[in-house]
């Protein structure tokens, strides 16, 4: 771990996190904060998905299940048992990770497209289940009262605290990606991603590693989900388990360059800013789907390695610095 301190990339992440935390504070700019909060959320989701997709080579359409379940557990604990926010978040993270671990051993027997399909099945099944699950309000969801922000100093203050927590979760996600990538665990995952059979024969405990990374990749998104829906003060199944958000996280990873820490983060940042821009610009409002689709197609056709693939090939020395 101490070795990481000597890598320049460690400090690049630190710098990015500090920049995120300070940027909206400087001008007390609330709308920038809201926009950056979503950026931080997307970076968190995409980075953790990247552990499965970029490292272990498994396409997980169901990554949003972690986010949604985390949100539900957290909101439920806060609402029904009056738990404070932090313990609720931790329980949400651990609970969802635990579920993912158990579940991972079953579903990770599948490979390639079959795994991808099964994860679509998982997200649909979980959403359909929660819609029928009355303790969580079924399809109507759960509403939090305005009172919940009192312990954090009222809504205005609470939103800042939540923002800083979300940035912290983003920082942890980036460090987690970085730490795993430079570890033995990460090496084993990359080997699985390249050729699972060969990896097994070389001694990589494939089933255990896959289930483990599935579970690890669930932890921070679950906490991010808890934060996000606590902030929203409202959770309903269609928002919590939105398949298109999962797909977006995949797209973001591919755009930035799967398997890289930097690329995925920048990809998430740019994607979310672009979507936000298209959504709110009067010129593109009616065509924002067309524009994002066309852009995506061009990138896929002509920059298949994603952003980092492009940067690495143009500036090979960056490979040494940017993971």
């Amino acid at each position, binding site marked *: 771990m101490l070795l990481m301190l000597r890598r320049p990339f460690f400090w690049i992440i630190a710098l990015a996190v500090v920049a995120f935390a300070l940027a909206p504070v400087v001008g007390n700019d609330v709308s920038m904060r809201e926009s950056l909060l979503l950026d931080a959320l997307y970076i968190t989701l995409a980075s953790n998905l990247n552990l499965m*997709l970029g490292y272990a080579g498994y*396409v997980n359409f169901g990554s949003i299940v972690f986010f949604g379940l985390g949100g539900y557990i957290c909101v439920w604990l806060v609402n029904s048992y009056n738990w404070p926010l932090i313990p609720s978040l931790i329980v949400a993270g651990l609970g969802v990770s635990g579920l993912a671990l158990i579940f991972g051993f*079953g*579903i990770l*027997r*599948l490979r*390639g*497209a*079959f795994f*991808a*399909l*099964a994860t*679509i*099945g*998982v997200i*649909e*099944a979980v959403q*359909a*289940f929660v*819609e*029928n699950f009355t303790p969580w309000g079924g399809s109507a969801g759960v509403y939090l009262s305005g009172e919940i922000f009192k312990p954090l100093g009222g809504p205005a203050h609470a939103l800042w605290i939540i923002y800083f927590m979300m940035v912290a979760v983003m920082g942890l996600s980036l460090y987690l990606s970085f730490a795993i990538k430079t570890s033995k665990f990460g090496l084993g995952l990359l080997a699985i991603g390249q050729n699972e059979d060969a990896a097994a024969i070389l001694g990589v405990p494939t089933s255990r590693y896959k289930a483990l990374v599935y579970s690890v990749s669930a932890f921070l998104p679950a906490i991010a989900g808890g934060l996000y829906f606590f902030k929203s003060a409202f959770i309903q199944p269609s928002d919590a388990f939105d398949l298109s958000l999962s*797909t977006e996280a*995949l*797209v973001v990873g*591919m755009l930035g360059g*799967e398997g890289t820490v930097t690329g995925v983060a920048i990809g998430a940042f740019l994607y979310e800013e672009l979507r936000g821009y298209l959504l709110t610009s009067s010129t593109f409002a*009616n*065509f*924002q*789907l*067309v*524009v*994002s*689709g*066309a852009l*995506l*197609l061009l990138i*896929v*056709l002509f920059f*298949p390695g994603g952003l980092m693939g492009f940067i690495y090939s143009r500036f090979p020395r960056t490979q040494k610095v940017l993971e």
Partner: protein
Amino acid sequence: MLGILASIIDGVLVGLVYGLAAMGLTLIWGVMDVINLTHGAMIVAGMFALFLLTSVLGLNPYAALLPVLVGGFLVGVALYWISIHRMVGRPPLMSLLSTFAVNLVLIGVGTAVWGTALFNVNVSLPGITMGRYTFPGAHILAAVLAAVIAALLYLFLQHTRLGKSVRAVANNREAAELVGIPTTRVLAISVGLGVALAGLSGVLIATLFPFTVLSGDGYQLKGFVVTVLGGFGNPVGALLGGIALGLLEGAVTPFVPVSWTLVIEFVLFVLVLIAFPAGIFRSRRGAL
């Protein structure tokens, strides 16, 4: 008791149509390992083609099948050259992304033109009544047509030169190339066929239910379920998978609250995947 029987018959009828809706998806998947995420949009294109052909040209709904077949094929070939050709042989995710991108464009254009309003094509055909239960004529005819189209596809794949080339490419692209099959052309034709099938199923579905620009997603999702049940690239398997899904929906509904059907459907889907990763109805190796 009669109610359960009616649900089962209904399930088979709708299931055949589901099977047809999945057939294009599974054909492309089987031939070139590409999951075509524009499939849902292509089904919708078929629906709107029906709407335009019947309301503007005043065509009989079933006469729309032929132009949709031809048009769908051409659109499919174009789709191949735009978004799939460069992806063949690249990691499977890439084609997923490129077709996802085309899908965004298609849905975007569709919403800009039609909005997400509901469209309805009224088809009145005499139905068959059994006690208090009625099977609408359109359902019966759609099921029969779905079966006929599947049979034609099967004959095409088994008994024509081109069909055999498609199967050869599906089994082993390199070997097919070595024996002189123009694989690129065959791949383009397969995508054309897959999209044409999607369009045809769209036409048939639109004679049964009202639809919107966004209706495709649901059928695409059902297509995945059917593919898993029926195995890849196999038209007969797709029909059987479709019937299984239709039966499941029909037979489960009388016994459990309607809102639990989806839970059961998808839990079963995941379990079937884990238990039979190559599909239940798939008997032998080698797609098609």
